[in-house]
């Protein structure tokens, strides 16, 4: 039996631990808040100078650059977070001025050096800064950081590579999706999408990658960025890829690309017997494509044995305009034998009546 004294001691010890931890939390918050206020106070006098720089032109801008390049280290370290934030919020001459300021302060060179530091925080922060600066000379080092031992550094490097918009990074970004040190597909997709049209040729090459995840991400990016010139490659992925996930993403990409070439392969992906997720996405993509030629096939799917395929077909018909709507009204009259088509058609028409078609949530969730 446990003595009363022991219980009291345990409760008191627990109470003491709670008090100490609470005090520590309050203290740490207080110190951080004080430090933040101190930094803000230090930055305040030079923030005005920074805004002047962003709004200045020609000689006036050069003069202000010299003044800001000459501020002391303490003021710069308080101001630098503002400069870093503004790099992503201003464009044109203002952004160029900030990049020049980083160069004049030696902060760009310091960040390049920091990429190889022992501290993961410094490596990650350096990658972030160089990405914001779109400092392309750092691309090879950033590509190496995709294999960093720290997952946060790998993510920071991937994001930075996207901002640098150098197509040379594409093979490295696709490679870091698999292996012992990976970067999440969402981060890679975002980085590849940020490369812009120049990078899409390299991304399309990724459709032949031996890893299915890399192919899936590549086809997703082509659809997301509207790379219409790569429609043929996406069609090939839908028809011939060995992995269902790649085919599903290819179907979705064809819907987003909206090219007529996507119609036939999408129609070929919807018959019964294909994977249900692929059928749902392909049916939804036919709606996105807006091809009225798909009307009879979509109308036939209204009494599909899979209710999700049938419901998606009904919503896809709505997106085809008057012709699709006429097919829905015809199905809604209940002339078909089992009544499922009429139910789906009525549901879609009712949805449209109360505020337009919903996105095909089921299809998105399926992936």
């Amino acid at each position, binding site marked *: 039996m446990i003595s009363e004294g022991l219980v009291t001691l345990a409760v008191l010890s627990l109470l003491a631990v709670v008090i100490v931890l609470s005090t520590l939390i309050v203290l740490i918050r207080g110190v951080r808040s004080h430090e933040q206020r101190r930094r803000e106070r230090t930055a305040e006098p030079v923030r005005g100078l920074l805004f002047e720089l*962003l*709004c200045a032109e020609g000689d006036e801008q050069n003069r202000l650059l010299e003044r800001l390049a000459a501020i002391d280290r303490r003021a710069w370290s308080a101001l630098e977070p503002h400069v870093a934030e503004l790099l992503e919020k201003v464009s044109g001459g203002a952004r160029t001025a900030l990049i020049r300021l980083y160069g004049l302060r030696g902060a760009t060179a310091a960040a390049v050096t920091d990429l190889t530091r022992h501290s993961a925080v410094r490596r990650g922060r350096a990658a972030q800064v160089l990405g914001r600066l779109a400092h392309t000379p750092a691309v090879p080092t950033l590509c190496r950081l995709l294999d960093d031992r720290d997952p946060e550094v790998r993510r920071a490097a991937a994001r930075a590579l996207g901002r640098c918009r150098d197509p040379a990074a594409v093979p490295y970004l696709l490679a870091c999706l698999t292996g012992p040190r990976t970067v999440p597909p969402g981060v890679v997709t975002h980085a590849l999408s940020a490369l812009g049209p120049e990078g899409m040729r390299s991304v399309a090459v990724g459709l032949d990658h031996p890893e299915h995840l890399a192919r899936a991400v590549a086809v997703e990016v082509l659809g997301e960025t509207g790379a219409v010139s790569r429609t043929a490659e996406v069609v090939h992925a839908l028809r011939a890829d060995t992995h269902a996930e790649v085919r599903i993403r290819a179907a979705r990409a064809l819907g987003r690309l909206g090219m007529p070439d996507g119609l036939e392969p999408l129609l070929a992906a919807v018959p019964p017997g294909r994977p249900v997720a692929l059928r749902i996405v392909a049916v939804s993509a036919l709606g996105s494509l807006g091809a009225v030629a798909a009307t009879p096939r979509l109308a036939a799917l209204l009494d599909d044995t899979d209710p999700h395929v049938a419901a998606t077909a009904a919503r896809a018909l709505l997106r085809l305009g008057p012709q699709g709507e006429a097919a829905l009204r015809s199905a809604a009259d209940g002339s078909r034998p089992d009544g499922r088509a009429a139910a789906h058609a009525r549901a879609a028409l009712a949805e449209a009546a109360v505020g337009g078609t919903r996105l095909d949530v089921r299809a998105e969730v399926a992936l």
Partner: protein
Amino acid sequence: MARVLIADDDADIRDLVAFKLTQSGHEVIAVEDGMAALRAVREQPPDLALLDIRMPGMSGLDVCRELRAAAETANLPVIMITARSQEGDVEIGFEAGADDYIIKPFSPRELSSRVNAVLTRVER
């Protein structure tokens, strides 16, 4: 010279916009959220409002709808500010009654020109 209201929870953007517009000769009222924007509109009626779409609490869209719903502010010119990644918000902004929009990243010069263009359009 016009009185311009800027509502943005990002202090750097708010201060930069205020600096640029003041430099261009306008009087600027800077606030950090939607509720404060509505208060400022009542207390010091501006000639134009620049509203960040995404603000905590009351968004720029909500502020715009409120302004359009009230008779005394129904015709106040409104420019929405949004991030590139949220470009879909632009359409919703126009539906809410905005007159123009600016996408971040923006150049301070462009911002000033847009403000002046909207003000000139309204004067006509």
